[in-house]
């Protein structure tokens, strides 16, 4: 959804805006000059702060805040500001509080002076003042006051104003950060607040839970259903926290059950053959997940959020469906997810990352929105890169019409001037070919056309992709290789040349019928000295391969009829001798050859290919590159004795692993949707960003907590009636009873009060005063409580530790795997480089 500021700027004409901006720029220059005069001198501000007139104090406070933002030293006013903490003026108080929260850490002792005044405000009759006081007190980062804060939260939890209760919920994580030892008390407060009837109290309570004690999932059970019901009515930020919690909760508490469902009888005829073989089943079985009714409750509630204006909520719902729900739910959410592309560009980027991740798993539903992913000329690189990726992911799933459109789009972009874009779109064509065999031919043709382009970058990229395609299906591409050879003359791009040469060695040298490799080699050798190093390497490699093939095909005739063989071109020879060498045979040959070898050397030297090989070695030997010289030496010694080709065979002619070009985001596939780690990807390190935790696995069947825990113990009539209504309905109800107080208010007050029941305001206040009087008492009580709960906490902490260890172990395993993976990859690469 567009933001109001962007829409406003669209409605205003551009001219008006620029005019104003220009004016202000002009005035800005002058204001920079009088900046000194606008903020008075320190002594003047101090005087204002010390003034007895509220107006002046307010003025002074405004200046102090401005100074703070100008990053001027504002700390000097600390004592003068603190004095005003007790000011009766709300405005002054607000500014003083902001100042305190910002600076208390630097001046803890002075900050403590203000605590008393703040504490007094905690019992103010104005809930706004109470809210502010609670918020400020918990925001002052001085660990000494943690117990006082905890007490203040306790009182806030049972305040009758939901705003204060909300502030209390928000204060819990702050208190925990001040002093983690307050945890047992805090979990108690969280439990109370989670049960609050006001939906905007519950949201922050959930946030607090997630931050303070996310492992104590037991606290949630009895609030689960009410949380799900309130989900729709919460504000967006509360919804986000609750969705986060409930997704984790669902994984921990609802085992993943599936049911095998036999296919309908009508489909029988299709599968008759299979049935004959497999009598006991009436058709293919489908695994259908069984939804726990409580989980279904959550999923249904989530469906209502799909029209939310907040993009983060949409992604959270998608995450919920993606990891918890059967596919039909996810299909529902795909549209709203794609709709996020209407939002400003910065959000589009994040949305695209999430879309890619979802599409990698379930590409089909996205085909409907394919038009959204067409790249525009003004898309920045990070956007079009992802759009291209999505296009290739959904490519195999759309009809021929769109396939044609996608391919021609990619072709169009492969001809643009941005080298990055060219590379990505050529690779995208390759991935399209890989994903959909039917169109592979078409893609290859397009790529082959690109080779003749003047853009060297495009050519080398195309060739790399062509190489991959050929390797994937080498048998049907011998002609393609020959066609590529014709391009050797045109391309100067070293990478492209190297790739073609390698392809020749790999695929055009083996088949004796169409052996063009020796000829290609011969032509290339002429220009050997002018080639770049990688091309030279490939030429030497090609030479080695050609020579090896020659050796493999010829050893027998060397002994039997060496004279003729030497004269005949190798291509022909290959056709004549068509038997294959099994290992046993060759070994025998080796033995016999060894005896004859010395006599044959002379004759063999006349062989053209051998001559060619020697010539290459000679050329390489005096090359300036030591790497090339080394390689040549390696091949030389490998192929030194024409009879023992086994090792060379293993090294040079080993079948190469078929390269598979994965979608670039394939590496992010397992990262959790909606997280920053998903966007950052590999750069975030192996465990993701700090605080990144993947979803827990589904709980084992039988390990899950009993569903009966989730039954609410509060009398349900009022609440269910009320919460089953949507906000709109409730609003209607509220309005109908206007101007009498809406029913929700009653509920809010009574539930919050808990023990207070239906007291009047005065009674309530009286009691509050009494409470303050007996504060010390309660403090003592809580201390003892704390001791009791400490032991429990220790236990749970130990548990936590264990779990942590497990996690770490897992992580280590991953590390190792990754390492080995990367190692093997490196080996592969090296081998490939060596062998070609």
């Amino acid at each position, binding site marked *: 959804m567009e933001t109001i500021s962007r829409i406003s700027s669209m*409605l205003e004409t551009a001219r008006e805006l620029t005019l104003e901006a220009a004016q202000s720029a002009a005035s800005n220059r002058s204001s920079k000059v009088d900046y000194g005069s606008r903020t008075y001198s320190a002594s003047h501000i101090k005087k204002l702060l010390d003034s007895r007139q509220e107006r002046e104090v307010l003025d002074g406070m405004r200046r102090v805040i401005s100074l703070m933002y100008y990053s001027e030293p504002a700390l000097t006013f600390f004592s003068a500001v603190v004095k005003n903490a007790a000011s009766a003026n709300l405005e002054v108080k607000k500014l003083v509080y902001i100042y305190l929260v910002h600076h208390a850490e630097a001046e803890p002792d002075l900050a403590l002076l203000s605590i008393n005044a703040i504490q007094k405000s905690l019992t103010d009759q104005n809930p706004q003042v109470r809210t502010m006081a609670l918020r400020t007190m918990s925001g002052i980062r001085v660990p000494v006051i943690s117990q006082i804060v905890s007490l203040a939260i306790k009182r806030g939890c049972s305040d009758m104003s939901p705003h204060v209760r909300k502030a209390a919920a928000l204060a819990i994580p702050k208190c925990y950060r001040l002093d983690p030892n307050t945890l047992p008390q805090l979990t108690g407060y969280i439990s109370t607040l989670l049960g609050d009837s006001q939906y905007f109290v519950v949201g922050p309570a959930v946030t607090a839970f997630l931050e303070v004690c996310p492992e104590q999932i037991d606290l949630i059970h009895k609030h689960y259903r009410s949380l799900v019901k309130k989900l729709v009515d919460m504000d967006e930020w509360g919804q986000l926290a609750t969705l986060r919690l409930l997704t984790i909760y669902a994984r921990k508490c609802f085992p993943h059950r599936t049911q095998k469902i036999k296919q309908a009888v009508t489909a029988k005829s299709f599968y008759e053959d299979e049935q004959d073989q497999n009598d006991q089943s009436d058709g293919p079985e489908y695994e259908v997940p069984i939804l726990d009714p409580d989980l279904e409750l959550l999923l249904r509630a989530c469906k209502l959020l799909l029209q939310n204006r907040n993009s983060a909520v949409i992604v959270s719902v998608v995450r919920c469906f993606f990891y918890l729900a059967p596919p039909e739910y996810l299909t529902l959410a795909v549209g709203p997810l794609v709709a996020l592309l209407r939002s400003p560009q910065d959000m589009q980027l994040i949305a695209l990352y999430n879309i890619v991740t979802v599409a990698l798993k379930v590409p089909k539903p996205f085909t409907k929105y394919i038009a959204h992913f067409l790249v525009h000329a003004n898309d920045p690189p990070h956007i079009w890169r992802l759009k291209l990726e999505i296009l290739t992911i959904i490519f195999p799933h759309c009809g021929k019409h769109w396939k044609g459109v996608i391919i021609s789009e990619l072709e169009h972009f492969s001809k643009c001037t941005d080298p990055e874009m060219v590379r990505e779109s050529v690779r995208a064509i390759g991935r399209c070919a890989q994903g959909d065999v039917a169109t592979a031919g078409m893609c290859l043709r397009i790529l082959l056309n690109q*080779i003749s382009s*003047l853009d060297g970058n495009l050519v080398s990229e195309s060739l790399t992709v062509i190489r991959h395609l050929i390797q994937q299906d080498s048998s049907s591409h011998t002609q393609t290789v020959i066609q590529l050879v*014709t391009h050797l003359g045109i391309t100067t791009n070293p990478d492209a040349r190297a790739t073609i040469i390698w392809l020749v060695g790999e695929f055009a040298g083996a088949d004796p019928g169409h052996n063009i490799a020796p000829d290609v080699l011969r032509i290339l050798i002429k220009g050997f000295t002018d080639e770049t190093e990688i091309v030279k390497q490939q030429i030497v490699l090609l030479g080695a391969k050609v020579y090896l093939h020659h050796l493999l095909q010829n050893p027998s005739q060397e002994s039997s009829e060496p004279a003729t063989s030497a004269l005949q071109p190798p291509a022909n020879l290959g056709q004549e001798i068509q038997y294959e060498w099994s290992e046993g045979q060759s070994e025998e040959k080796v033995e016999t050859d060894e005896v004859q070898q010395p006599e044959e050397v002379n004759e063999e030297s006349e062989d053209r290919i051998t001559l060619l090989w020697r010539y290459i070695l000679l050329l390489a030997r005096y090359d300036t590159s030591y790497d090339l010289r080394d390689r040549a030496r390696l091949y030389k010694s490998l192929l030194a004795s024409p009879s023992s080709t086994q090792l060379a065979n293993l090294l040079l002619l080993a079948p190469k692993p078929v390269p598979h070009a994965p979608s670039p985001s394939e590496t992010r596939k397992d990262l959790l949707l909606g997280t920053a780690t998903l966007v950052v990807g590999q750069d975030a390190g192996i465990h993701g960003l700090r605080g990144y935790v993947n979803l827990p696995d589904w709980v084992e069947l039988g390990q899950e907590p009993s569903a009966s825990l989730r039954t609410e113990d509060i009398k349900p009539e009022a609440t269910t009636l009320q919460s089953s209504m949507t906000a709109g309905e409730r609003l209607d109800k509220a309005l109908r009873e206007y101007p009498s107080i*809406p029913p929700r208010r009653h509920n809010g007050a009574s539930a919050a009060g808990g023990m207070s029941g239906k007291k009047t305001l005065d009674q309530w206040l009286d009691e509050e005063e009494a409470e303050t009087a007996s504060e010390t008492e309660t403090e003592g009580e809580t201390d003892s409580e704390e001791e009791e709960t400490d032991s429990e906490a220790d236990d749970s902490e130990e548990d936590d530790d264990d779990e942590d260890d497990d996690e770490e172990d897992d992580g280590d395993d991953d590390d190792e795997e990754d390492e080995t993976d990367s190692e093997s990859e490196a080996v592969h690469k090296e081998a490939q480089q060596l062998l070609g």
Partner: protein
Amino acid sequence: MSGEIDAVYIYDEHNAPLVEHIYRSRPPSAAAILPLYLAHAAPRPSLLYLPGTTPPVTVFSTIQSNLLFLAVSEVDTEPLLVLEFLHRVVDVLEEFVGAPLLSSKIQANYDVVAQLLHEMCDAGVVCNTEPNVLQEVVEVPSWMGKLLGGITVPGSTSTPALGTANPLKQSLATASASQGPAIPWRRSGVRHTSNELYVDIIESLSVTMAPSGRLLSALVSGTIAFTAKISGVPDLLLSLSAPGGQQALARKFELPVFHPCVRLARWRERPGELSFVPPDGRFILAGYEVDLLPIDPGLDQPPSHMEKLFLPAIVDIRKSLGPSGADFEVRLTLNTDFPGQTSSSRPTASRSGSGTSTPSFLGGGSGSSSGPVLEEVVVSVPISKYVRHITDMQASRGDAQFSHTSGLLEWRIPTTRDAGTTSGTATLRCTVSGYPSPDEDLEDSLEDEDADANLLQGYYEAPTSYDPSSNSTRKSRDPSKRKKKKKKSSKKSRTAEETGDAPGDGPSEEPVKAKTPSPNHSKPQTPQPMALAQPSSQLPAFFAPSSTPRPTPRRTKAQVNASLMPNSASVSFSVRGWLPSGIKVDSLTIDQRRSRGLGESVKPYKGVKYLCVSKRGVERRC
């Protein structure tokens, strides 16, 4: 994963830190973050991970009216949450400080900004972003307040005049706060002397056209902005309609999102009816999109029947014109015959539409004109960065400018009424020139390479790299046909080369050949000895000596210029009083029965505005 924001930084247009608000822990300062942020290349992604800072942070960014907004988080935080928050900060600041956000305005209102930032996010947890709620909590020292002596008078003019008495206000606040807000998005006790309601529907159009002119996609993303300045608690009903009735609207109004105030059940029941209690002030009521060109994704054939689409501006581009192929021509077709919004059943279908189309304004519109007005027509052509400059910009209307830094050729076409009718065609013809030296070097080497290519030509068709006609034939997907065509085209290209292009490049090529770089020099000679050495007929035919030893140079000036040609053009425009989707506001009524605090006699002023915007949205590939 969490939802924590450590700090919000705002920088002014010169990237000097303007606001630095820290919510929790000790993130790196604004001054420390900025160079690391700027270190990334220019179009910066909205999420950056900076591992170099202590502690390592993720930085979320958005840019609004030249101000840079950064949010910093140490832990993994939902990126969209943070970005949404930043956008809300922008919205709220605009509301409190004044519409185009300017650094001077922010500096002048630091205390308000501080209160807002403090209120919107509590210790890193976003907690309160509703502008109406913030209005109750944060007070703006308005000009009125200053007149009255700087004592807290509620900043918004709409609140009842309470005088300067704080206690009274506090007691009011007490009442509302203790009960919790009845409506979380609307502040209580709204009073307006003049009651006004405005609906603005803005649709932004994005159309992609293939080089052939065929439409690939046409999407509209629409937003309904609403301004409510109305006393009490009004309950409004906004009904929308589209040509084709309610069913058509339900189909058209795709993927809607709504402000929380909209009753979703009502919408689901009767699509097109938005029933809501609005917040006070300006807000986005709903967003939607319309696919003007729905194509079934599973379709195998190109859609046989396509709805005709009316576009007020269409751009076409022809390139590689002129003797050396250095010219290109942009052709813009403007059409202000907006299809009648009132009469025709499908707005997009009938081009004939009655000329007297009138935008439907409820209770008197805000626009002065009677028909839709096409304005701000700009054609943008992205130009390759290898282009040095563009000479000879000849526009039949308007004026064109090429900015090298942005790589964009912008052509503005005036559409004022006095200039006569806006409809018609305008053309712009330009000549490009590239950078001379590096290109010519490239030319040499390539030209030499081409010699080899021709040697192999007898066997496989020689690549006819630059000839556009051959390129287009190659696209044909039938492999058997392709071969034949290619042969033809290759011949064609060769003749073209000899006849047409040779004179053109003759003089320019001469000096170039002289300084041919040595490394490639031996290449053209390779084929000959090879051919002699291996006359065997068993060899593939491409080694046959028949090929010409020294072919004509292939990379001509035209080729060089072809690589400098733009490959797309797009047009921006705005139309007041017309929507491509044809969606209209049918009625806007106040449900008197459900509304409170609004006198029966009050008839608020209602206004509707339609606006179609295309920001480089109509794009033509070529």
